[in-house]
């Protein structure tokens, strides 16, 4: 490292902080940037700078967006009366990729965690309740993960929503496609068996 001039060392250090980038890769990337055309490097640095300036949270669903409403919330063909509750943006993207959902989302920006004292006020639960209070929502699908925090959050939300007339559903747990039963954990298998359906 000390063999590099300090301006290169700085870039190596910056890149090294990114997830999955070790020192060796950081060195290689830095050397690549050095030899790339200036316009490309400037574009990259400009785009990174813009990222922080323009990206904000959608005022409806709290997804990342560069305008007031995200692409899903501003799409008139999406069903506004059907809300899917997820932990974060990545989970929203995963559900979206499945192509199975035509409603809108509500991104909690976290999960309840008793051990870390992350309570209802620390994530976007109030905003969800406000939406439901206004009426017009037919169903809330709770699609948080199946770990303890995900289940606890689902339980809390469903307790809070009980006083409304809205339908509350939880995504099912089951056997993954292309999987062999013997590799599926026993909790999932139990849930899959309980949620079996007629053919």
């Amino acid at each position, binding site marked *: 490292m000390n063999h590099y001039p300090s301006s290169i060392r700085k870039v190596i250090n910056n890149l090294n902080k990114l997830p999955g980038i070790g020192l060796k890769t950081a060195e290689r990337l830095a050397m690549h940037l050095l030899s790339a055309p200036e316009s490309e490097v400037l574009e990259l640095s400009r785009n990174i700078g813009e990222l922080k300036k323009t990206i904000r949270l959608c005022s409806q669903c709290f997804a990342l967006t560069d305008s007031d409403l995200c692409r899903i919330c501003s799409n008139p063909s999406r069903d506004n009366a059907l809300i899917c509750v997820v932990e974060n943006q990545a989970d929203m993207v995963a559900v979206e990729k499945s192509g199975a959902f035509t409603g809108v989302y509500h991104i909690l920006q976290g999960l309840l965690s*008793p*051990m870390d*004292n992350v309570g209802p006020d620390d994530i976007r639960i109030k905003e969800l309740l406000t939406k439901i209070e206004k009426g017009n929502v037919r169903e809330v699908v709770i699609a948080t993960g199946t770990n303890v925090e995900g289940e*606890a959050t689902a339980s809390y939300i469903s307790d809070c929503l009980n006083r409304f007339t809205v339908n509350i559903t939880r995504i099912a747990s089951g056997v993954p496609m292309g999987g062999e039963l013997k590799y599926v954990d026993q909790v999932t298998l139990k849930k899959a068996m309980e949620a079996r359906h007629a053919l």
Partner: protein
Amino acid sequence: MSTFSTPAILLRRSSYGDYDLIVTLLTLNKGKLTVIAKNAKKSRKRFPGLLELFSVLHIECRTPRARGMAVLQDATLENPFSGIRGNIMKTSYASYWAELVNLWLEEGKEQTRIYHLLRYCLDSLDSGIIGNEELSIIFQLRFLSFSGLSPNFSECNKCHTKMDEIKGNHLFFELAKGGILCKGCSSSSLSSLNLTKGIVKQLLWIQENDLKTAGRLKFNQASLREGLKFLEKFIVFHIGKEPKSLKFLRNLCSQMP
């Protein structure tokens, strides 16, 4: 290289880098134990659905060569406690107990009685045969006594008058000395809490009976609240800080409809 296996209850898990998990367990044979579960985050097949909070497991570990953490080799699930996981209140109580155990116990010191206590309380919380609040009272009282901090409810800490013989319905409790005081003795004590004789009798009864019998004791709402408030204060006083999950639990209780 040697391996060992033991029943264990998962108390805490945290990420270690992009691939691994570090889990703290209360084991039957080796007390509190922190192990590393390699590739637990990277591969869904490595420990599928096993390394969750409060899971009762049977684990197999490889002891470290010199220093450092034992490596988790294999785990099988005995009870995932679906009844706790699907309920925010139960999850909060279980989190509080697990955090207490984690905060208080030293690594590697066998704690068989605390293991069985936690197991019993999680089982009962999961099945719901005993109320959450009642269980928390039982857990905290037993936990204190196994940790050598059992509150003295049987007689005045100063003049040794038996509790039954102390006149009036109001008793006092000195947190620092860990015992009740009669009215006369309380005036010379700088800081003491008020306790009703009713709750003191109930707590004493739980101390003196086995777990199964203790679980049958019925409390009314007022004494449940009084008992919990007292025990939580006493524990926070002796730990020197408020466990995060206790803050969460108290917040939740004040918000729930």
